[in-house]
């Protein structure tokens, strides 16, 4: 994809109306994601965590741009590459890092891990490991909002590989048929694991165009500039709020690391040059940093301060995670059934667990 040179979206009202502080905050949020994940990588490699670690680094403008638009009734749900969205909705680094460390202070008490961050209080519904499995849930969030008579939307993020799970199309049909305010955001980073887009999907002009067959509005654009992400998604949110209509957006982006940290071959199925090119020309943080300095809002030293404050937050969250206790053995069978956890009448009749 071609780099966004000067950003035509700076003038979009949603961006033009931003206060300088808001713009700095956008940059800060992107930095928080990147620095948090760099630390998580370091400690993953040091053996502090298990399972998978899917890094979002390179895609920060998408989650941060999208979540910066959320109002009280706008909800988010995503797949397993979920750290960026989690921090962007306002989750603390502490609970997120502690979750990776498998500690009881983690956002999911150490039960979910990297792929399963949740914060319903922040309209954040996870963090889902089954590819495409979150797309009907996103539909359900939109349905629930409409049922309750609330003006809102459900932003359902998914990857370019996830578009080949059938439940996505079932969901598109229902969203269109019932006028549900769901926004499917395909974060097209060009690869599903080791498989390039061309080897996984057949399409006309782009993946999002598949929505046309369901009579759904769609758009496809380069997401490296957070202003572009905000302007385009805002249009979809307004469509959801005012018309209760769905949208499918395909956002071109790129991940710098492998599919997961376990992905040893990511410099084989794609070239070093390609990765370098993206880092040099398409880095969302660099691009927005330059945007802000062009706007005269940020000096190098101010950027360094920003970065240092973020790095301090990261250090603290690692210390917090390290210091936090593990879940108790007894807690293994907690959080399975609501009625049992709350020892309601329903939780006390009959046997719920069957060891011995």
């Amino acid at each position: 994809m071609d780099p966004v040179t000067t950003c035509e979206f700076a003038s979009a009202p949603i961006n033009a109306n931003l206060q300088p502080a808001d713009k700095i905050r956008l940059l800060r949020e992107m930095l928080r994601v990147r620095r948090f994940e760099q630390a998580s990588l370091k400690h993953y490699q040091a053996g502090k965590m298990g399972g998978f670690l899917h890094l979002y680094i390179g895609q920060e403008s998408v989650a941060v741009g999208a979540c910066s638009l959320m109002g009280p009734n706008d909800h988010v749900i995503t797949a397993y590459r979920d750290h960026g969205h989690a921090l962007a909705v306002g989750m603390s680094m502490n609970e997120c890092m502690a979750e990776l460390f498998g500690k009881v202070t983690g956002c999911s008490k150490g039960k979910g891990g990297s792929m399963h961050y949740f914060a319903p209080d922040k309209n954040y519904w996870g963090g889902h490991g089954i590819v495409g499995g979150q797309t009907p849930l996103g539909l359900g969030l939109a349905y629930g909002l409409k049922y309750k008579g609330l003006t809102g939307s459900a932003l359902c993020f998914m990857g370019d590989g996830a578009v080949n799970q059938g439940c996505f199309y079932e969901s598109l049909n229902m969203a269109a048929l019932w006028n549900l305010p769901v926004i499917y955001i395909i974060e097209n980073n060009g690869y599903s694991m080791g498989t390039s887009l061309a080897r996984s999907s057949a399409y006309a002009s782009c993946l999002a165009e598949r929505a046309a067959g369901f009579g759904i509005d769609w758009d496809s654009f380069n997401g490296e500039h957070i202003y572009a992400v905000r302007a385009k998604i805002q249009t979809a949110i307004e469509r959801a709020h005012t018309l209760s209509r769905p949208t499918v957006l395909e956002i071109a982006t790129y991940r710098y690391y492998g599919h997961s940290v376990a992905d040893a071959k990511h410099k084989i199925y794609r070239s070093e040059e390609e990765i370098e090119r993206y880092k040099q020309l398409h880095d969302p943080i660099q691009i927005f940093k330059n945007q802000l300095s062009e706007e005269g809002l940020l000096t190098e030293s101010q950027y360094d301060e920003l970065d240092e404050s973020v790095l301090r937050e990261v250090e603290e969250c690692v210390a917090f995670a390290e210091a936090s206790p593990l879940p108790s053995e007894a807690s293994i069978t907690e959080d399975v059934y609501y009625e049992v956890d709350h020892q309601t009448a329903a939780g006390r009749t009959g046997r719920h667990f069957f060891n011995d």
Partner: protein
Amino acid sequence: MPEITYREALRHAMAEEIERDPNVVLLGEEVAEYDGAYKVTEGLWKRFGDKRVCDTPISEAAFIGMGIGASMLGLRPVMELMFWSFSTVAWDQIVNNAGMVRYMSGGLIHCPIVIRGPANGGTNVGATHSHTPENWIANVPGLKVVCPATAYDAKGLLKSAIRDNDPVMFMENTLLYGEKWEVPNEEYLIPLGVADLKRSGTDVSLIAHGRAALTALKAAEILAAEHDIHADVLDLRSIRPLDEEAILQTVRKTHRAVLIEENKPFCGVDAQIAATIQEKCFDDLDAPVLRISAIDAPAIYSPELERRQLPRPSDIVAKVLSIC
């Protein structure tokens, strides 16, 4: 007490809960304008309108998942699967989303959803339409599963299921929809996890769930009338949670147990029950715990033979006579 059909009992339960709680909504294929493929929801759409009773496309994965997502926001969707057999296309949503999201969120989320519909063979609709997945579901910690055998149980259990804050898989039986039982007009609830001793005896325990419990009752009559053998008939009603106490009690009383289910034998619910009984009533047993399940093949179409494939009273009588 008035007699109503199993179908009406389910309908009344849903109507009462719709009136009681604005978050209760019925969704499924043909449940609204068509009045339900098996007429369980007959009249509810006319009575409660589009918002509360809603037809879906033939997209089980999406609409079940939608219901789960909506339940996370506090709705109480009651989803109809025209057949539980069609849960196979929504399996991931049921197991991984309804079943796991509470756990993986460390208890931050819960899913007060009910998924209901018929799960039975015996109607000659062929192998793909005759699944009885209560054992698959009960294998999954996080899910609950209920299999009512009578109109009375169906109503009381469905109301409890709708009020339950965990996902409840509610399995009915098309062969029972038209059967009548006494059901009081006054509201009542039957808690999940409480079995029902449907007949009291002394010589042997017949333990079953769903329609098999009624087959067991017929067998018990024959045993009493023709063989002077008096059987306890315990209807599990709820599979998970399970009323293990009631199971152990009846076996400690009679010292013999025959388990009956309409599922296939391998890893059926009765495998779990038999394993439990032998472990916890080892010294009480005067004979091995015996099982009767469907003949171990996919459901055959040929009506004559499918009747033979499912447990009959005579099969139970023969098994009992082999240990009494």
